[in-house]
């Protein structure tokens, strides 16, 4: 055919325009789905320990974190520390935790532990109070505990901490140590477990001014109006840095961050000042939990969550009923002021004595901390 000759330079065959097709490779797929060990037979299962508990003499303590997560360098972490301490103290204790990614998760996480037959379920954080109340009501035989809230149910052990007391001491100390006459504080969120520190701190500063007729100023919190500076985060270190820098530029030289992991931002900022500025850590002894910045920690206001949780778990394991409310204060050493560590030599002896005396006065009732955030 003539046409073929004409197109010889084009292509040898005429039908060139078949679809350009993809590689035809038939792979027959056996998508079996998840092979779950479901088919274990359908015989009647053996009866389980009806009274709950995992049997075998084990005591199963389970903890639900709030949205801060297990590594929050704050109360979730301390509670978990307490659980592990209990496990170390008594080999029959097994511990578990589950993390909540949103407020919606509190209730199902607590419920799952009920179903997992935990002996004790610990909810961490005041924001979980509603969920604990609800699940505890629905499971009256299940033992619960909650940290930083008071749930008035017979099967819930409420653990609260009057950190206003040691914060009062810290306020007095800060006022006494400030060269600039200005100290500062900020919170993570405006919730009672945070503002209680700030209240106590404010009262401590005020007490110093009253005793010494000075006028050390507190930035970042006003106890009367309950207004102040908040990072709106327990994790954002950058936020902590920027807030701290603002305080420092306003003349403050000692900062009390009550904001979990955000406080690291404050520590790193004051640490850069060669000892001119300092941070007061909260919840833990900062020289232990954030030891890199130890040189900048004047002291720490400690909250004995770990110890209290450990005590509760051990008591539960021993079969003691956990009910009512525990309030950690200076007297029962549930809260306190950490050692001065690197600053020990820089704090005048007289001031140290006064701070200790204030502690004793609070214990004895001679000084009354007024914060309304204090647990009752």
């Amino acid at each position, binding site marked *: 055919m003539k046409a073929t000759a004409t197109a010889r330079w084009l292509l040898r065959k005429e039908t060139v325009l*078949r*679809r350009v*097709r*993809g*590689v*035809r*490779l*038939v*792979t*027959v*797929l056996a*998508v079996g789905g*998840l092979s*779950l*060990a*479901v088919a*274990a037979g*359908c015989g*009647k*299962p053996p*009866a389980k320990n009806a009274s709950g508990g995992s049997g075998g003499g084990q005591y199963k303590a*389970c903890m639900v974190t709030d*949205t801060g997560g297990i590594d929050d360098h704050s109360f979730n972490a301390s509670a978990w520390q307490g659980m592990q301490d209990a496990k170390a103290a008594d080999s029959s204790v097994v511990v*578990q*935790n*589950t*993390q909540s*990614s*949103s*407020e*919606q*998760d*509190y*209730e*199902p*996480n607590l*419920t*799952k*532990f009920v*179903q*997992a037959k935990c002996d004790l379920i610990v909810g961490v954080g*005041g*924001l979980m109070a*509603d*969920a604990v109340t*609800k699940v505890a009501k*629905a499971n009256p035989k299940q033992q619960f505990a909650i940290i930083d809230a008071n749930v008035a149910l017979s099967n819930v052990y409420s653990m609260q901490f009057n950190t206003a007391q040691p914060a009062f001491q810290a306020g007095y100390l800060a006022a006494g140590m400030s060269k600039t006459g200005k100290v500062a504080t900020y919170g993570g*969120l*405006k*919730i*009672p477990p945070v*503002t209680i520190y700030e209240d106590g701190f404010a009262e401590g500063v005020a007490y110093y001014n009253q005793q010494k007729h000075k006028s050390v100023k507190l930035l970042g919190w006003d106890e009367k109006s*309950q207004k102040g500076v908040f990072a*709106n985060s327990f994790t954002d270190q950058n936020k902590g840095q920027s807030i701290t820098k603002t305080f420092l530029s306003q003349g403050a030289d000692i900062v009390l961050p009550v904001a979990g992991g955000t406080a690291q931002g404050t520590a790193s900022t004051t640490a850069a000042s060669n000892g001119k500025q300092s941070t007061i850590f909260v919840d833990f002894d900062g020289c232990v939990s954030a030891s890199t910045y130890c040189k900048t920690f004047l002291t720490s206001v400690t909250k004995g969550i770990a110890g209290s949780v450990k005590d509760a778990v051990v008591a539960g394991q021993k079969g003691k009923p956990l009910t009512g409310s525990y309030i950690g204060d200076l007297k029962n050493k549930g809260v306190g002021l950490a050692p001065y560590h690197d600053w020990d030599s820089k704090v005048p002896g007289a001031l140290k004595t006064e701070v200790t005396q204030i502690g004793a006065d609070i214990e004895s009732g001679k000084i009354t901390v007024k914060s309304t*955030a204090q647990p009752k």
Partner: protein
Amino acid sequence: MSSDEERPGGGPADPDGGAPGTGTETATAPAKRSGPRAAVPGDAKRTRTGIVIDALTTANTFTVTVLAIVLALAVGAVVIALSDQAVLDSMKYFFARPGDTFAAAGHAIGTAYAALFTGSIVDPETLNEAWWGMTSWSSVLSPISETLTYAAPLIGTGLAVALAFRAGMFNIGAQGQAMMGAIGAGLVGFMVPWPPVIGVIAALLGGLVGGGLWGLLAGWLKAKFGAHEVITTIMLNYIAAPSFVTWLVTQHGVQQPGRNDPISKAVEPNAQLPHLFGSGLRANLAIILVVGAALVVSWLLRRSTLGFEFRAVGSNPNAARTAGISLNRTYLLVMLFAGVLAGLGGASIVLGNTPNAITPSVVGSIGFDGITVALLGRGRPVGTVLAGLLFGALQAGAGQMQVTSQVPIEVSTIIQSLIVIFVAAPALVRAIFRLRAQRVGALGQNLAKGWNG
């Protein structure tokens, strides 16, 4: 975007072909045509089995989605194994006894995924116990109940994104719209001592209005001033939460008495959504409502004149405008509807779940998760429901994984994200499973589109 599903009266091309008057072949080659139509080779000879095998081995939407899930679970398995202490311990002497590592990994993965299943679908052990009367039947339903509870808000926001998507708009604002929905529902829910039934309806309406207005605002900014919805909706998200809501719930009369933190009063019990399987299980009316909403959206898109306009504008706004469809009206309506759907999602949380109150983080991240749900659902209502259920199951199962095998919840987030990544990169899935390219229409186009709308 080409699917028979959405064609009016279309339906998938009739596989039997040529039923008189209705078949697909009738229009192809009447005698008066001059030449034979260029038939796709082999088309006529395809048998039913052939079609099925074809469907499974071609990179069509369904196959790619399923395989994307399989792949994501596979990668998730590696992460689980690597985060397991026993596996890590045995790896220290891997070359001496590799079997230990594999056994440990197998155990870790097995228990984790078993927990994922028992936490979201059904626990065979509980089922067995219930059969023998050792436990209540409601505990058998517990995993499903959890899945449905997590899925409902996701489906709401997923629909909000999907609907806008079909109209060519990228609604990043489902988060803010859900927040406003939660606020609307919450305010109505606690302001008045409601009688039963009416309370629920009123509070829901409050949620729909709250979300709808927030969506409408973005639509109005686009229609009136040409502001791109991606920008405006992101900004409106920030305004809704944390700014507006934090201010609102710390106001006197809104804040829960005796609380210092940002939380509103609790919604009246009569305004709360009724539970589906008894008060012991969390599943509530929300899931029914969002599935109903999905059906409405499906009807809207397929069978209504409005939906026709939405799809036309989404697919080719120029042609739509030329055909007399008002773009501005479409922008307004689409964003209003999208806001209503997201508002339903947000309202369902406040009215359905503890603490039944407005807080700045009450809606979690359902608005952003809704984007992934809509993407996975390919912008289709039914797909969105299925994707929402899947993600709900993954979230419910993640809790169980944590409880029984201490797998961090992040694994579930990784799996969810991977699914969407694989779905968005069909070529990758095709390459891994050596699928043939689909004949018509590029897959994934769906996901890439919409940004310039």
